[in-house]
């Protein structure tokens, strides 16, 4: 299949997907498209439906409606076959308490169709994981590492990572980012669900934001920034009460001959025109930080 937006072959597609649990609509017409070879960020507040979407992609849950395609196959009917080509790291890693970390890595790797021995040893070293310990003695971070080593030691086309770094320390976080970039360099596709914005900014080509089971936004980070507001602070020769009348300007505040306001990116030009009419003495404008971007997406109703 071909992805129209990105003009590249498509690794996975969810379109109009609905999944209900009793009366709760966990996914409600959700759409997400990930192109082959891209690292795609998957963001959203807790309970928005990220893990449900992951499980639908894995064929563990059956979508009530909509289209689900994964690596040019149907994840529900061809689950086992497709799973040989992907690796999954769950957000909450649960392991068999009486198996050692090394055994779990081998088990998952072999069931997936084999793992790269050299890579396995290297990853154990990189993540500083002792494979001889029983899983019941591992901390959350160490259980996470077991799943990560098992995933990255396999040579697969697609990585589905559901908050894979929750519980990792900053050094291990860096090791994880290296692994993702290496996988990308080898042409693999990565779907990365995460709450760590620095991680998303460092790794992801594009992001999708989910809220209440629906797609809130999707695009590159710069596209998303463009869709949102810029914060402007200006010092003008004369007062500019007229700025409040400009469409797209929000919450202007006047103080000591300065004005501060947010403006929709599409109306930035109009706002600056009005300001310059009043004689600009100083002007700062900054695009929204990622935090602001996400807080806005997570916290407000979507108006578009």
């Amino acid at each position, binding site marked *: 299949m071909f992805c129209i937006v990105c003009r590249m072959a498509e690794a996975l597609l969810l379109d109009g997907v609905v999944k209900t649990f009793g009366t709760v609509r966990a996914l409600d017409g959700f759409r997400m498209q990930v192109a082959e070879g891209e690292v795609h960020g998957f963001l959203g507040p807790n309970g928005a439906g990220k893990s449900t979407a992951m499980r639908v992609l894995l064929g563990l*849950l059956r979508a009530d409606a909509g289209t689900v395609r994964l690596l040019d196959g149907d994840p529900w009917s061809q689950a086992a076959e497709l799973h040989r080509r992907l690796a999954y790291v769950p957000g*909450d890693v649960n392991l068999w308490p009486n198996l*050692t970390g090394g055994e779990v890595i*081998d088990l998952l790797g072999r069931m997936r169709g084999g793992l790269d021995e050299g890579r396995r040893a290297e990853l154990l070293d990189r993540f500083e994981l002792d494979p*001889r310990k029983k899983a019941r003695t591992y901390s959350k971070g160490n259980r996470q590492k077991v799943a990560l080593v098992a995933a990255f030691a396999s040579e697969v086309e697609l990585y589905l990572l559901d908050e894979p770094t929750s519980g990792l320390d900053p050094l291990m976080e860096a090791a994880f980012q290296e692994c993702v970039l290496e996988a990308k360099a080898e042409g693999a596709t990565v779907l990365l669900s995460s709450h760590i914005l620095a991680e998303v900014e460092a790794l992801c080509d594009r992001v999708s934001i989910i809220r209440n089971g629906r797609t809130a936004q999707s695009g590159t980070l710069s596209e998303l920034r463009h869709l949102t507001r810029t914060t402007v602070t200006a010092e003008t020769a004369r007062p500019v009460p007229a700025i409040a009348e400009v469409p797209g300007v929000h919450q202007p505040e006047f103080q000591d001959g300065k004005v501060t306001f947010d403006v929709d990116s599409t109306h930035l030009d109009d706002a600056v025109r009005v300001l310059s009419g009043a004689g600009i003495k100083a002007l700062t404008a900054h695009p929204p930080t990622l935090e602001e971007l996400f807080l806005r997406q997570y916290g407000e109703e979507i108006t578009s």
Partner: protein
Amino acid sequence: MSAVTGTVHLVRLVLRRDRIRLPVWILGITAVTAASANAIRSLYETPEEIAGYAATVEASAATRLMNGRPAALDSLDGITVYESSTVAVLAVALMSVFLVVRHTRAEEETGRAELLRSTVLGRHAATAAAFSVAAVASALVGLLDAAVLVANGAAAEGSLLHGASLACLGLLGAAVAAVAAQVTPSARGALGIAGGLVGAAYVVRGLGDVSDTALTWVSPFGWAQGTRPYADDRWWLLVPLLVLAALLAGAAVTLAAHRDFGAGLLQARAGRPRARPSLATGWGLAFRTQRGLLLGWTAGITATAALFGSTGREVVDMVADNPDLAAVFEAGGAGSVLDGYFAFVLSFLAVVSAAFAVSSVLRLKGEEDAGRAEAVLATGLSRTRWALGGLAVTLAGSLLILLCAGLGLGITHALVADDGSAVRVLLGGALAQAPGILALAGCTVLALGWLPRWSGVVGWGVFAFALLQSYLGELLSLPDVVAGLSPFWHLPMVPSEAFTAAPAAVVTSVAAVLTVVGFLGLRSRDIT
């Protein structure tokens, strides 16, 4: 802050979490006593009928094994407690074991206790809370038991004593579990130790009673039975039960004070850094995760079967020494008495072994609930192969356990009685019960496929029914339609009855259909 600060809060938590479970246990045990009391009152109405019952029981080694030494069987009161005690004493002890492990070691293992211990909570508060609730629940079982007996017209003192002995056994079960919970870091291990001790104590009591030796007095169940309600009313035998419970509770406290939170006295050793090649398939994984379960059951059933086998000759002797007893059996001759004994033992071992099959099938649900199924199902392993791997272990394990039951019984009997011919017969007799186990496993698979949330209730429900039916079926005089719901009811009791292929084939087919339909459900539903 003392070591039991906060116990009251934990007691409330235990009661809240077990608000359905605990009443079911308590009322269930009471219901069994009530049903027995009712049935017996309608079954034995004349002195002749009562005398006939006493004579039959005196002669039956199997009854001695299960119910203990006869006492006060000249009265309906005595017969009632004799018939209902087996279920009641085991159930009250296991109720306490499950309750205490569930609220102590299981909480620690899952990490929930850590959150609680970070609040104002003493070191022993969890144990104290679980133990207190178990004690009150046991006391309630005892009181209700006495009330039901008195309501059926039994003498007040004997009834109270019987109730009190039940309560003491419940308390003892709680104390055993409290110690077991200190030993292993896993709840499953603690349940295995405590449940195994309860089972072993019961078997020792049974063997002592069959062989009529002092072995009975090694087991606390023997002490409870020795109170002889309605006959001698020996209240003082409750003292050793209470003393032992207190000693064990003290031991639990001492052990708890000498270990770290989350750790057991048995420390985890470093394991192998690489997996064996066998651990790459659904079957290999299922075997690995159920290895402990299977080993425990095989060892337990083999040991029990061996003990039963070793008493076979004494059964014959007992009958041979007493012409009156021999006359009770119409067919006459020691051979048939022995066959009846072995047929009963085999059927009993098979029904009990079905618990392995049910818990083995439910492991699939456990894997799903723990989120581990998700990890393997996200690999190249298909659902069908995953579930087939688990069921292969269930099937092979069930057959292995039956094989060991037959061999254990046959070989020890052959050694004791110098009669090797029984081995083959008993082995065949054990395997003849396999369809019943498979049918119970099939019911559980069906529920797993279509009603996953209720699979535990369904699996253990049909098991409990089969167990009750084979224990109390005749006493409760269930109509055939109801009794026939237990797959074991249809199977011939080899060696006292001849083996016939038809019922085995039908029950096996039913098991196969249940399993296949369950699989279809499993393939079409969400994995949560």
